[in-house]
């Protein structure tokens, strides 16, 4: 801290007040970075390259990070109530071009720890450790350079995520933001020999660039207007605007300030796969499953939620930002759910459910329920990781098979019980079955929708989406995990498979040459496939799955701790910069009244759902909706009776009663299966015109620019070509030219002088 810019400290008790954190807090991000470097070094040493060393390095470093995080929590939890703790590792950027405020840019490698970052870091490091453990077995078939690369990128991801979450300024957040984008790119494109994986990686990267541009502009605008990017200085500067908002003087807030959250929001949409920019996330499932679980379900995609929660004071003062966030979130949730209903690839279904659940979180933020959003992030992280890892285990065991029409009764096969139970737990959570963690967190958001004035419609959309979610979740469960025990292996056999397929090892699930077609598959009895037996998951996968399933259920407990502060997550969020808004109805009223002058005070003070208090009635409404969804799934896809749980014909496994309903729905299911043609629409709307424009520009470049350049080359060459004949080396020509020239010169002299 230099004396150039006075540090504006907020009044005591404000979340912006900071105090010095412990030095070892800085180890939390740097241990994964060390692990990344070590993995790279392991890759350089030939004898140990093809061992599982990188995995253990990563697991241990992430585990130590998690332990340090727990220690930080234990030591500083009380302190967060009075303000964040900051540990500055070193001075990173310090530019000064004047002595006025706003002419000094300070961005330290400092780590800002309060309730919000603490919550995030706890599940990032915790889940990171578990998933690294899972990956140590999952990726084992790829031991060698690829294994090192995987864990190096994995560690780098955790480092970047830690920078993003723990950074004490927006620039460090931006560094982490780009870092996680890079790691996401590297890990989606992990199977870089596979064209679809490369395309998916590029798609993710480019889509994220669009969002990152918004974030970068937002950060620049923040610095431009407030003269600082450090949270500790920034939020006190926002406070006057919030005060004028509370006082009803909306016109005092400059438009520039209102533009900042809009730009930040675009960044959040890109990273968290919201409506205009969501298409990269389903394709990101090309990456290895642990990556899908950690990055594309549990942690990275929640960075957008974190960003909005962290800069919530900025969002509060904007007239448009939060309504846009609400609508985008709700519509994304609905759209992704409808697409998820019609997919057959179970990993893809999970990806769409992630997009959908992220929509819930954004809606929760927009309903001024940072607590609800954060709680949903928290519970979602566990159950979605569980779901993905279960899908990964299935994929691992059935040679890359992910089509739900080709798998059935997996739970009752030998060695698959833990996977099945974990999957059931995950599905119950995701569908919001009563008393699961997902149930409580989703309710919190749904209830806020009805509390916040003007968002009732969105509330109903989200309730409908909850029903759809329950349906498609259990569609997967009923078709894949129960029913007759039948399967058809995928086209990929792991190198460590003990069935003599070592020579047939592939990197990941290679593109389908034989099995995957658009037509419904012709069912084959599994005994016809004599050479393949599914290999059930090993101890690492089973341990992790069991642990995660338990944690998914246990996350519900967080709701009951510190009930007076909306649960444990609520109390964590309350002790952070997102705190001001997660209080209750009064805030909603103030915020809404400030921007919607037509509402009377009675309307928002007495927001009701079906004539009752929304917070109370929502438990019943969402429970009923969830159960209805599960029952519909059971009716359409479930086994016949109790006996049907384990026995049945192959045809029943491949087909379902839903198929008979499909023709009556017209083309809608087909459209949903084709993801509502959004990709094609983007292709048509953006890629085609860009391609045409680039062709035109290429033509202009080739004809005009190159033509001009070539002309400048061609002209002297042409001139030289015509003048070259004069230099023939024939003496007589030279003499003739001389004589002719003499005649001309003398003639001119004569004309001039005579």
């Amino acid at each position: 801290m230099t004396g150039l810019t006075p540090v504006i400290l907020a009044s005591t008790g404000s979340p912006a007040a900071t105090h010095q954190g412990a030095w070892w807090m800085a180890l939390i991000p740097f241990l994964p970075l060390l692990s990344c470097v070590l993995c790279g070094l392991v890759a350089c040493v030939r004898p140990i390259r093809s061992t599982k060393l990188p995995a253990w390095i990563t697991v241990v470093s992430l585990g130590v990070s998690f332990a340090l995080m727990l220690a930080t929590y234990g030591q500083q939890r009380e302190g967060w109530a009075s303000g964040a703790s900051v540990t500055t590792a070193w001075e990173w950027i310090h530019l000064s071009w004047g002595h006025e405020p706003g002419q000094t840019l300070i961005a330290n490698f400092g780590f800002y720890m309060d309730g919000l970052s603490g919550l995030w870091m706890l599940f990032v490091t915790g889940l990171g450790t578990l998933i690294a453990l899972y990956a140590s077995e999952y990726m084992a078939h790829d031991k060698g350079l690829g294994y090192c690369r995987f864990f190096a990128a994995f560690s780098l991801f955790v480092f970047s995520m830690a920078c993003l979450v723990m950074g004490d300024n927006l620039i460090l957040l931006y560094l982490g933001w780009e870092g996680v984008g890079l790691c996401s790119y590297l890990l989606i494109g992990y199977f870089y020999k596979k064209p679809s994986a490369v395309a998916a990686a590029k798609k993710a990267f480019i889509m994220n660039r669009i969002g990152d541009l918004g974030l970068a502009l937002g950060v620049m605008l923040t610095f431009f207007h407030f003269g600082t990017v450090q949270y500790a200085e920034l939020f006190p500067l926002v406070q006057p605007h919030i005060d004028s908002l509370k006082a009803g003087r909306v016109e005092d807030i400059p438009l520039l300030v209102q533009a900042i959250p809009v730009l930040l929001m675009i960044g959040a949409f890109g990273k968290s796969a919201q409506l205009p920019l969501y298409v990269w996330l389903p394709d990101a499932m090309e990456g290895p499953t642990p990556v899908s679980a950690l990055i594309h379900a549990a942690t990275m995609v929640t960075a957008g939620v974190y960003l909005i929660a962290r800069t919530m004071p900025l969002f509060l003062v904007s007239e448009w930002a939060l309504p846009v966030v609400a609508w985008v979130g709700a519509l994304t949730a609905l759209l992704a759910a409808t697409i998820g209903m019609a997919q057959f690839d179970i990993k893809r279904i999970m990806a769409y459910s992630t997009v959908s659940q992220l929509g819930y979180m954004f809606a929760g933020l927009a309903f001024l329920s940072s607590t609800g959003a954060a709680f949903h992030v928290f519970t979602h992280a566990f159950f979605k990781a569980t779901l993905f890892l279960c899908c990964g285990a299935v994929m691992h065991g059935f040679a890359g098979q992910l089509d739900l029409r080709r798998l059935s009764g997996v739970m009752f096969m030998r060695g698959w019980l833990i996977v099945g139970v974990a999957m059931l737990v995950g599905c119950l959570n995701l569908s919001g079955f009563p008393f699961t963690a997902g149930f409580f967190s989703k309710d919190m958001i749904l209830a806020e929708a009805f509390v916040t004035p003007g968002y009732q419609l969105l509330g109903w959309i989200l309730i409908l989406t909850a029903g759809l979610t329950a349906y498609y979740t259990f569609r997967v469960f009923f078709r894949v995990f129960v029913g007759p025990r039948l399967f058809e292996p995928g086209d990929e056999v792991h190198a460590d498979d003990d069935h003599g397929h070592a020579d047939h090892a592939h990197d990941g699930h290679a593109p389908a040459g034989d099995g995957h077609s658009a037509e419904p598959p012709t069912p084959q009895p599994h005994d016809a496939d004599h050479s393949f037996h599914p290999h059930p998951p090993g101890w690492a996968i089973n341990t992790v799955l069991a642990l995660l399933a338990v944690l998914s259920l246990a996350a519900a407990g967080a709701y009951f701790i510190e009930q007076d502060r909306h649960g444990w997550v609520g109390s964590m969020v309350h002790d952070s910069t997102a705190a001001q808004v997660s209080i209750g109805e009064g805030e909603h009223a103030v915020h809404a009244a400030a921007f919607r002058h037509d509402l009377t005070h009675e309307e928002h003070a007495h927001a009701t759902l079906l004539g009752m208090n929304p917070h109370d009635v929502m438990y019943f409404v969402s429970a009923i909706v969830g159960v209805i969804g599960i029952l519909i799934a059971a009716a359409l896809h479930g086994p016949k009776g109790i006996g049907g749980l384990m026995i049945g014909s192959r045809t029943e496994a491949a087909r379902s009663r839903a198929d008979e309903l499909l023709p009556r729905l017209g083309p809608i299911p087909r459209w949903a299966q084709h993801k509502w043609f959004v990709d094609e629409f983007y292709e048509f709307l953006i890629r085609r015109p860009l391609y045409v424009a680039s062709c035109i520009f290429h033509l202009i470049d080739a004809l005009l620019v190159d033509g001009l350049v070539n002309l400048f080359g061609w002209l002297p060459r042409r001139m030289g070509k015509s003048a070259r004949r004069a230099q023939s080396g024939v003496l007589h020509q030279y003499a003739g030219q001389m004589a002719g020239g003499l005649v001309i010169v003398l003639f001119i002299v004569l004309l001039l002088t005579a």
Partner: protein
Amino acid sequence: MSELVLLAQSGFPAPMGGLTLAHYLFVSAAMFVLGVIGFLTRRNLIIMFLCTEMMFQAAGLALIAFSRFWLNQTGQTFVIFVITIAAAEAALALALVVLLFRKRESLSADEWSEMSG
């Protein structure tokens, strides 16, 4: 009407037998032009050099005529120079011709048109 023309009209200082400077200058110019034409038309290197000698000769004639016209000896002094240069040129040029003939067994100037250094 320039001074020179007036001088030319007045003729040479006697005794010039009714001749004017223009007579000699015209003969000189005609000889020069014959040299030029010969240089342009003949292919034999030796004849081409002979033509240059003829051009020298034309210049010398004009200088002598001017010398007589101005009644001083500077023109004749210059002719000494011209002859010197002509002799030097003849020596060098003929040496070159001999050298070239040894290489190609031909005196045609067209043989040496490839402009190689």
